[in-house]
C-alpha cells in the first residue's frame, strides 16, 4: 500500500474528535500549512493540540482556535496569538505551558519509550508547581512526563516513497520529534522522490515513523503563505 495520499481529507480521516494532535513548526516556519488548512475544513472538535505556538491571530492553528475546535493547547509560546489569551480568560480553552526545551524533550521521550525524565529546566519556578523535585548527585531536577499523541501533522522538505524524510534549514525544528511520538504520522512535503535518491547518511526521519505523505499545497514564501 502506498503511503502517498492525494486527497488531504482522506489523509486527515485519522484525526478524530477528542484526539491529541502534534503539529510541527516554529510559528509558520516548518508548519504543515496544507494539513492545518485541511483541519480547518474538517468537522472535528475537542482537540488537544501540541505545538510550540497556536499560530497567529486568524492564521494557521489560529483559525482552528477561532472555530472552537481546540479544547486544550500544550506549547511554549502562545503569546504569538492574542486570541489564545482572550479565549483563556473566557475559560474557553485549557493551556499547558512548557519551556521550549521541555516541550521538545517530552516528545522525544514519548517516541523513545521513556516515561519521564528529570530536567534542570524550570526548577524553582512557577512552571515547576505540582511537579516532583528531586536531587540527583547534588543537582536539583524536576520530573517531566513524556508526550505521546494520536496523530502528528508534520512538514518535511523531501520524502521518498517509502517515507524517509529530510528537512530544510530551520523548518526542521519540532517535526522530526513529532514524527516519533504519534500513532499516526502524516507528513506534507515539497517534493516526493524515489527510494535511493536520499543519502542514507542524511535521512533525518527513517521511514518507519511515517504513515502518510501528502504534497504541500500551501507554501511559506517571502510574501507570506501562498497556494500552489
Amino acid at each position, binding site marked *: 500500500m502506498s503511503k502517498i495520499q492525494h486527497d488531504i481529507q482522506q489523509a486527515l480521516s485519522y484525526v478524530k474528535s477528542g484526539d491529541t494532535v502534534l503539529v510541527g513548526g*516554529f*510559528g509558520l*516556519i*516548518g508548519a504543515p500549512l496544507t494539513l492545518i488548512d485541511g483541519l480547518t475544513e474538517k468537522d472535528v472538535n475537542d482537540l488537544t493540540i501540541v505545538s*510550540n505556538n497556536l499560530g497567529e491571530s486568524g492564521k494557521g492553528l489560529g483559525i482552528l482556535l477561532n472555530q472552537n475546535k481546540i479544547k486544550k493547547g500544550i506549547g*511554549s*509560546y*502562545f*503569546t*504569538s496569538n492574542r486570541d*489564545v*489569551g482572550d479565549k*483563556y*480568560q473566557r475559560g474557553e480553552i485549557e*493551556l499547558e*505551558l*512548557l*519551556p*521550549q*526545551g*521541555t*516541550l*521538545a*524533550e517530552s*516528545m*522525544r521521550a514519548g517516541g523513545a519509550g521513556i516515561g519521564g525524565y528529570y*530536567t*534542570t*529546566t*524550570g*526548577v*524553582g*519556578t*512557577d*512552571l515547576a508547581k505540582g511537579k516532583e523535585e528531586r536531587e540527583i548527585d547534588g543537582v536539583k531536577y524536576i520530573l517531566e512526563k513524556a508526550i505521546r499523541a494520536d496523530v502528528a501533522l508534520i512538514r518535511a522538505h523531501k520524502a521518498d516513497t517509502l517515507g524517509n524524510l529530510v*528537512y*530544510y*534549514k*530551520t*523548518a*526542521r*525544528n*519540532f*517535526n*522530526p*520529534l513529532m514524527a516519533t511520538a504519534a500513532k499516526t504520522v502524516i507528513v506534507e512535503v515539497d517534493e516526493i522522490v524515489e527510494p535511493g535518491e536520499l543519502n542514507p547518511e542524511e535521512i*533525518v526521519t527513517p521511514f518507519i515513523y511515517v504513515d502518510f505523505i501528502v504534497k504541500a499545497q500551501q507554501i*511559506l*514564501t*517571502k510574501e507570506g503563505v501562498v497556494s500552489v
Partner: protein
Amino acid sequence: MTTQMSKAETQHMIAKRVALELQGPCTVNLGIGIPTLVAEYMTEDNIYLHTENGLLGVTDVEEADIDPNLVNAGKLPVGEAIGSSFFNSSDSFAMIRGGHVDVAILGALQVDETGVIANWAVPGKNIMGVGGAMDLLVGAKKVFVTMNHTSKDGSSKLLKECTYPITSTRQVDMIFTELAVFNVEDGQLKLVDLMPGATIEEVREKTEAAFIE
C-alpha cells in the same frame, strides 16, 4: 541620563557595551530584542551564534537573500555562516541544557540583588509564553542580561526581590542597562561600569537593589 537618546539609540548603546564582553572562540545564544542587536557589534570572527530553533552559525542576511525558512528565535530572517549546522529542537535544547552554549544574552523585566531574574510573566496578565528562557538560564555557561534600568514610572527594575515570577533560581553573570553594568559576584551585584552620560548618583538613586560600588 542627562542626554536624551531615542529608544533605538539606547538599545544600540547597550548592545554595543555587551559585545565588548564577548571573547572568542565561543558560542552565544541571543534572545529577542536588545540581545539580537549585539550581533552587529561583535568584532571577533570566532564567535558563533546559536539559535534555539535549530541553527548553529547565525549571520546577518541581505534583503535579497532572505529565505522564509531560515529564521532566528525571534522569527526574523537570518543567514548561515560557513561551518554552520542545522538540528531539531530537542538536539538544540540538549546543547543549551547540557551546558554546551557558552553565553546566553537575554532580556529581563526584573533582576534581584542576588542576580536572579524574572523575564517571562507579569502577574495579573495571562502567563502565555516562556519559550526557551528557562532552558537558557539553567544551561548556558554564562548568562548576560540586558534591561531597562527603570520602568516607565521611574521605579527601579533592579530590586531587592523580584515581584514577578522568576525564570530560574540561577543567578546571572552580568547585567547591562542604559545606566550601568554590573557583575554578579558571590550572589551580590557589583557595579563595574557606568554607561555614557550616567553618573554614580543617578545609578544609586534608580537602583533599589543593594550593590557594591
